[in-house]
C-alpha cells in the first residue's frame, strides 16, 4: 500500500503523480486517488505488468464507443516494479451501500439507469461480467448517474468469462453457461438487485447448483417489492435477452408499484407483468379481492359524505322545526 504523499514518476511519459488516498482494492491490484498535472485522477496499480496492459487495452477500446467506464488517461510504469495506468476519477457510492439509503422511487430510477448503462456497454459487443455491487458506482442525482469501475472482467461477447464473483455468476446458480453474452450480465444485475434485500450465505459455496437454486427462489419470494419479482425471475431464467427490454419491463413493473403504493400502503398487490410465473401466483391470487376494496374506496367516501349531509340536513330541519315550536 502506498502512503499519502508518495511521488510517482512515470518512466515513459515522465508524468509526476502524487498519491492522495487509497480508494480500494480490485481483483488484481489497488486503486489510488492521485494528483496529476491534468487534475485529480484515479491510478490503478498492479504487481503484474500484463494485467495492467490488458486492462488498459480494454479501457481504450471501450472509451471509443461508450462512457460507462472511466476515461483512460495514460499508461506507464515506474522502476523497479510498479505498473500502473491513470484514468478518470469517479466519485460515487457503491451500489449496495447506496441502495440502503434510497427511497423506493429512487431505487427504481437507479436500477433503470443501471440498465441503460448495460445497454450502452452491450452495444460495444462486450459484457461487464464481473458484476458485483462494489464495481457499480451510484450518484443519486436526478436523474441518477451510474458508472462502472474495474474493467478487468469485461469480456467480448462469445468468449468465456474468466473474472467473476461467484454469487453474481450465472453458472454458480446453475442458471446457464459462463459464456459472455447480454443475458449473463442481466442475470448478474437481477442477482445484485435481489441481494439488496438478502445476502447469500457462504455455506452455499459447498452446495450443489440445485440446492443453490432452491435457496435463490426462496429468497426471491421474500423480495420486498413484489411487483418486480416476476420480472427478476424471468431474467434469472434467461428469458429476457437484452438490457433495453429489461429496462422497459422494469419501468412497467415500477409504475405498477407506484400505482399500488398510492392506493394502499402495500406493494404486494401490484399489477402483474404479462407473463407471471408459478412462484409468484400465490401473491397475485390475493390481489383481486384487495383491489376490489380499493375501487370501493371513493364510492364509500361519497356514500358516507352524503349520509352525513343527510343527517345534518335532517337535524337542522328538526332543530328549526322544534325551535319554531
Amino acid at each position, binding site marked *: 500500500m502506498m502512503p499519502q504523499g508518495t511521488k510517482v514518476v512515470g518512466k515513459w511519459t515522465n508524468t509526476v503523480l502524487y498519491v492522495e488516498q487509497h480508494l480500494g482494492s480490485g481483483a488484481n491490484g489497488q486503486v489510488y486517488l492521485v494528483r496529476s498535472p491534468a487534475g485529480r485522477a484515479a491510478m490503478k496499480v498492479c504487481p503484474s505488468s500484463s494485467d495492467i496492459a*490488458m486492462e488498459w487495452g480494454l479501457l481504450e477500446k471501450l472509451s471509443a464507443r461508450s462512457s460507462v467506464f472511466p476515461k483512460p488517461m495514460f499508461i506507464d510504469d515506474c522502476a523497479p516494479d510498479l505498473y500502473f495506468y491513470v484514468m478518470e476519477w469517479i466519485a460515487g457510492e457503491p451500489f449496495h451501500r447506496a441502495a440502503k439509503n434510497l427511497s423506493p422511487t429512487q431505487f427504481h430510477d437507479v436500477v433503470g439507469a443501471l440498465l441503460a448503462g448495460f445497454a450502452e456497454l452491450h452495444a460495444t459487443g462486450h459484457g461487464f461480467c464481473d458484476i458485483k455491487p462494489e464495481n457499480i458506482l451510484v450518484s443519486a442525482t436526478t436523474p441518477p448517474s451510474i458508472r462502472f469501475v474495474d474493467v478487468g472482467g469485461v469480456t467480448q461477447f462469445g*468468449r468465456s468469462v474468466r473474472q467473476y464473483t461467484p454469487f453474481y455468476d450465472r453458472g454458480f446458480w446453475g442458471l446457464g453457461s459462463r459464456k459472455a453474452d447480454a443475458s449473463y450480465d442481466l442475470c448478474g444485475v437481477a442477482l445484485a438487485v435481489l441481494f439488496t434485500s438478502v445476502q447469500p450465505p457462504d455455506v452455499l459455496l459447498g*452446495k450443489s447448483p440445485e440446492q443453490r437454486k432452491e435457496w435463490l427462489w426462496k429468497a426471491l419470494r421474500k423480495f420486498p417489492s413484489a411487483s418486480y419479482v416476476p420480472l427478476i425471475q424471468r431474467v434469472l431464467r434467461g428469458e429476457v435477452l437484452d438490457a433495453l427490454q429489461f429496462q422497459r419491463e422494469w419501468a412497467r413493473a415500477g409504475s405498477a408499484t407506484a400505482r399500488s403504493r398510492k392506493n394502499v400502503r402495500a406493494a404486494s398487490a401490484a399489477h402483474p407483468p404479462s407473463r407471471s410465473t408459478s412462484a409468484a401466483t400465490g401473491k397475485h391470487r390475493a390481489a383481486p379481492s384487495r383491489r376490489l376494496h380499493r375501487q370501493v374506496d371513493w364510492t364509500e367516501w361519497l356514500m358516507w359524505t352524503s349520509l352525513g349531509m343527510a343527517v345534518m340536513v335532517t337535524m337542522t330541519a328538526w332543530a328549526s322545526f322544534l325551535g319554531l315550536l
Partner: protein
Amino acid sequence: MGDVKGTIRQILVVTDGCSNVGDDPVVAASNARKQGMVVNVIGIVDKGEVGQHGKMEALSIADAGGGMCRLVQPVELSATVQMMTHQTMQLTLQQVVNQELLEVMGKSTEDLPPMERSKVMQVVDKLEEEVRLEVVVAVDTSASMRDKIPTVREAIRDLSLSLQARQGDSRVAVITFPGSGDSMVETVQPFQSEVDMAKLDDILVARGGTPTGPAIDHARGLFQQLRDVDDFPTSRWTGETQSQ
C-alpha cells in the same frame, strides 16, 4: 507448449497433507515439467493446518512443476481452481510470446513501451481463449479428505463449466489417489470435454496413504496416451497442405 499444435497441459493436485507412499512427488513434478506440463498444487486447510511439512512439500511440488501453490479454506477452493488455471495458462502463453519476441525483436514484453505491451497482451488474451487446454485434476482421497470431497466435487464441476465456455478445445480428466482397492491411483474419468458428474459421485475416500508422486506420474501417462492418438486430426484430408 513445445509441440506444433499448441496445447496447454496442466496437472492440478488437490490435497490436504503430505505424500507418504511411492516416488518423490517433487521428482515426478519436475519430470512432468520437462515434458511441457505445468503442475499446480492446492492444499486444503480445514480448521487445523496442513502442517509445516505439508506446506513445504506443496510449495516444492509446484516449484518443480513450474506452477503455482495455494493453501485455501474449503470455501475458497472453487475460486482458487479457476484463478490458478487462468493464471498459469496466461503465464505459459506469455512465456511463449516472450520467447518469440526475443527471437524476432531482441526484446521481451517488459522492455516494450506500455502501449505496445497492451497490444501484445491482447494477443495473449485471445490465445488463452482459443488454445487447446488439457487438465488432469488429481484428487487426494486419503481418509482425512472425507469431509472435503463434496466441496472438491463442486469445484471440479465449476471448473468444467468454465472450460465448456471457452472457444478453444478443452479436455478434463479426473484421477484419485489412492484408488479404490489396492491401486495407488485410479482414473475416475479419462480425458473428456465435460465432467461426468455421475462418475464424480463415485469418488470415495479410500484407506491407505497419500501417493502424490505416483498420481503425478499417472497424470503424465494420461497426457501421453492422449497425445499419441490426438496428434492425428479427425477432420477429413482435403488434399491441402496445412499452413500451421
